[in-house]
């Protein structure tokens, strides 16, 4: 018998602080698998967000930097411009990329920086206790929308990927999800494409991953995956956007 599945080398062998059923654990592993498969561990420089994944750098076995909340793409821009031989990626949540960091996101995309962006969309701010995110759905109850998000008061779920797709500097955007093992594999393929694009000098590549937050959605882990499949994908359609 052969071992056909095990922990990738680029993922450190330790417990994470993420909640049971959280999508971060899955995507951290997918990134590590892709890094192993592309043989780029010694070239990678990751930029961690502020959010639940603020200590992502404790879980990967390659060079990492923090960034102030929202600023990861500014930090990444400088790093990649100065060291184009390194593979530079940011890992950001919906607040980091599409609220406080919107300006940095749009301008890095518009400049066509040759970067890989992994965008974890779980429609809520997990780390701080489940507040509304730009991507929170209408009617979704959160700590700051106790009656459910209302368009007239809080606006609509933000489709940052569709917005970025308008920009000439953006070369690849795909939205995937984690609602089943098959979807997880699709996410891995998209992540691999986004890294390969950077290796091939193609330009700004972003993967938006619809990810579960069972605790703040107040669901079991399985219910959370079902909610992504049945509800979230209606608002955030899966597939290649650019």
């Amino acid at each position, binding site marked *: 018998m052969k071992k056909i599945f095990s922990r990738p080398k680029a993922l450190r062998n330790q417990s994470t602080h993420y909640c049971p059923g959280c999508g971060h654990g899955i995507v951290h592993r997918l990134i590590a698998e892709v890094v192993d498969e592309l043989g780029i*561990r*010694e*070239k*990678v*420089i990751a*930029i*961690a967000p502020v959010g639940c994944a*603020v*200590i992502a*750098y404790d879980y*990967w*076995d*390659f*060079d*990492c*930097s*923090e*960034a*102030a909340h929202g*600023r990861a793409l*500014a*930090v*990444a*821009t*400088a*790093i990649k*411009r*100065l*060291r184009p*031989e*390194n593979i530079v990626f940011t890992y950001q949540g919906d607040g980091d990329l599409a609220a406080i960091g919107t*300006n*940095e996101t*749009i*301008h890095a995309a518009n400049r066509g920086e040759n970067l890989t962006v992994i965008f974890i969309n779980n429609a809520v701010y997990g780390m701080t206790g489940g507040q509304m995110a730009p991507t929170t759905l209408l009617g979704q109850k959160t700590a700051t929308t106790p009656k459910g998000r209302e368009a007239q008061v809080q606006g609509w779920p933000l489709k940052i990927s569709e917005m970025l797709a308008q920009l000439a500097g953006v070369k690849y955007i795909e939205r995937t999800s984690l609602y089943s093992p098959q979807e997880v594999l699709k996410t891995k393929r998209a992540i691999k494409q986004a890294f390969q694009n950077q290796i091939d000098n193609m330009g700004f590549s972003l993967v938006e991953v619809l990810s579960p937050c069972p605790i703040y959605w107040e669901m079991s882990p399985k219910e959370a995956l079902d909610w992504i499949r049945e509800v979230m994908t209606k608002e955030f359609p899966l597939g290649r956007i650019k």
Partner: protein
Amino acid sequence: MMSKKILITGNEAVAEGAIQAGCRFYAGYPITPQNELIGYMAGRMPEVGGIFIQAEAELAAINMVFGASAVGVRAMTSSSSPGISLKQEGISYLAGAELPAVIVNVMRGGPGLGNIWPAQSDYFQATRSGGHGDYHSLVLAPASVQESYDIMQLAFDLADQYRIPAIILIDGMLGQMMEPLVIKSQIPNPKSQIKKPWALTGCRGRKPNIVKSFFMQQGGLEKLNLALQKKYRLIQQKEQRWEEMFLDEAKVVLVAYGTMARIAKAAIKQLRAKGKKIGLIRPIALWPFPTNIFRRLTTAHKQLKFLVIEMSYGQMLEDVKLVVNGRCPVEFFGRAGGGVPTEQGIIKKVKNLL
């Protein structure tokens, strides 16, 4: 080393000085009165193979500097007062992650949008660490176009040596005036800089590096803070810099920095021509503040008065009062909001004190 003499603005002298000191990354955003600096960098930085980025905002620029510094490159940004306010978050992060960087503030009138004339109203912001947390940046204040150029080598070297942000505090007058500058023609080798084993370069042949300022484990952040405090005490001992003139027998000692010190010198010249015993202390490093000279002076000479002169309503004044500690009177003369204390104003004030 060949040198030449050119006529140039203070802003451009700062930029060229940075290039000569090995700065190979600049990110900035236009704001008056430092636009000459970013304009000069746009043309000059690519000539030496560095990276120039006009960022989308001052906030993005300081974070780009964070990234550049994290990979071990000498990096700089510049702005003027309102834009420096935007950078405070980033400077706090640089301090916490112990990343070297140079930030140039060409001060203008405030608060708020203010105006575009010179001021020295950001002394508190620079020396009290305008961002959050217990940290310090080195603060250097040149007073001429030549000094603005020369001081950049010091700023980058000290920033790298101590792993600390360095703020260059000039004002709109110094930034935009033109004076002769003796410039070194030869570009020094940036590789002669200090090695940075902590930098992010890809983890080939070593364990991965992490650049961060976040320490959630018990005692972790306190440990960082104690190390920072130790570093700051060392800097306070070793890096005080000032110019002193005519201190022996001085009855009144003027204390001024930057452009204000030049105006003070002109006033002193007139007063001394009339036989008045007036001296000058011109701090060149504002942090660490030159406490040594004040202590020496006030222990030896009990019979003197200090007159602090600023383009503000009394910011450096507080540091002078703190170190003098009541041993001698400390008076103040200042104007801000774009107004500049004049020679005549200073002379009048000094005569009142004598």
